[in-house]
């Protein structure tokens, strides 16, 4: 059975905003998420740290190390695009192993710095806590 993929309301709002500011990018991110939900090959790769590093695949998976070290099961997906940098968004998601659920928590611009004191980071952590996903 393929795990569930849910979009947190904050990430849904990110996508609504993106649909206004960059409709083509929103269509690409949404289509990828839509397909990930239905394709075990894609969804199984979402917990494979460094999957696709060096452009060996079409996207790169990475733990959010700073948060991971604090026990948060939070990841980031970056799509390798051609031409390079043509899709500027990153997908931030968490995994709840008890429910076998992926939760997309944010869709951020590549300029996002992943700093702990950033408002978006705080928003992501609040969403994580609200969902009751365990920390390790």
């Amino acid at each position, binding site marked *: 059975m*393929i795990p569930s*993929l*849910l*979009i*947190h*309301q904050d990430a*849904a709002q990110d*996508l609504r905003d993106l*649909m206004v500011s960059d*409709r*083509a990018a*929103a*269509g*690409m*991110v*949404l*289509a*990828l*998420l*839509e*397909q990930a*939900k*239905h*394709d*075990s090959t*894609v969804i199984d790769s979402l917990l494979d740290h460094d999957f696709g590093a060096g452009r060996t695949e*079409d*996207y790169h998976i990475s733990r959010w190390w700073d948060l991971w070290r604090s026990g948060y099961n939070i990841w980031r997906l970056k*799509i390798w*695009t051609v031409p390079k940098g043509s899709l500027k968004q990153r997908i931030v998601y968490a995994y*709840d192993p008890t*429910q076998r*659920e992926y*939760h*997309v928590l944010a869709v951020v611009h590549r300029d996002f710095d992943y700093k702990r004191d950033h408002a978006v980071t705080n928003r992501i952590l609040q*969403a994580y*806590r*609200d*969902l*009751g*996903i365990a920390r390790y």
Partner: protein
Amino acid sequence: MQSQTEFFKPTGTLALPVTKVGDMAVSVGATSAPVFFYAEVKLPAKSAKSVSVDIDDLVAEFQSKSAANAKAMSKGRQWVAETFYKDRPNLAQLRLKKGWSQLELAQKASTSQSYVARLEQGKVDPQMSTVRKIAEALEVSIEVFAEALLLEAKP
């Protein structure tokens, strides 16, 4: 798990001496004394369903809002086909190249989205009549469709 501590103002006084409340010893004199209640309330996690939306529902929301959104979604799926399925000419690739969701293919082939999903996962062995309907919807030959199905067929 979220934890929230709430403090309350004294709500009254105890007129009688109390030596023990629960596991906590309380020393209260014979005269009236203010009583403070301390409660630690562990709020349950918010249900994922209450704060989340299924991706299919979100896509439906966007597509229903404007033709431009629907076109962006269609182009997004074609990009997914070209980017993520370029080396996997399976049923998903055939569908995505058309810019269609599973539901859209299902509607065009007079079947259900769940059936298309299972077909793409290689979990069903379709009847010939179904193969013909879906191949026609996708505008591919039965041979091309069969080859695409075999790529995902589970032993």
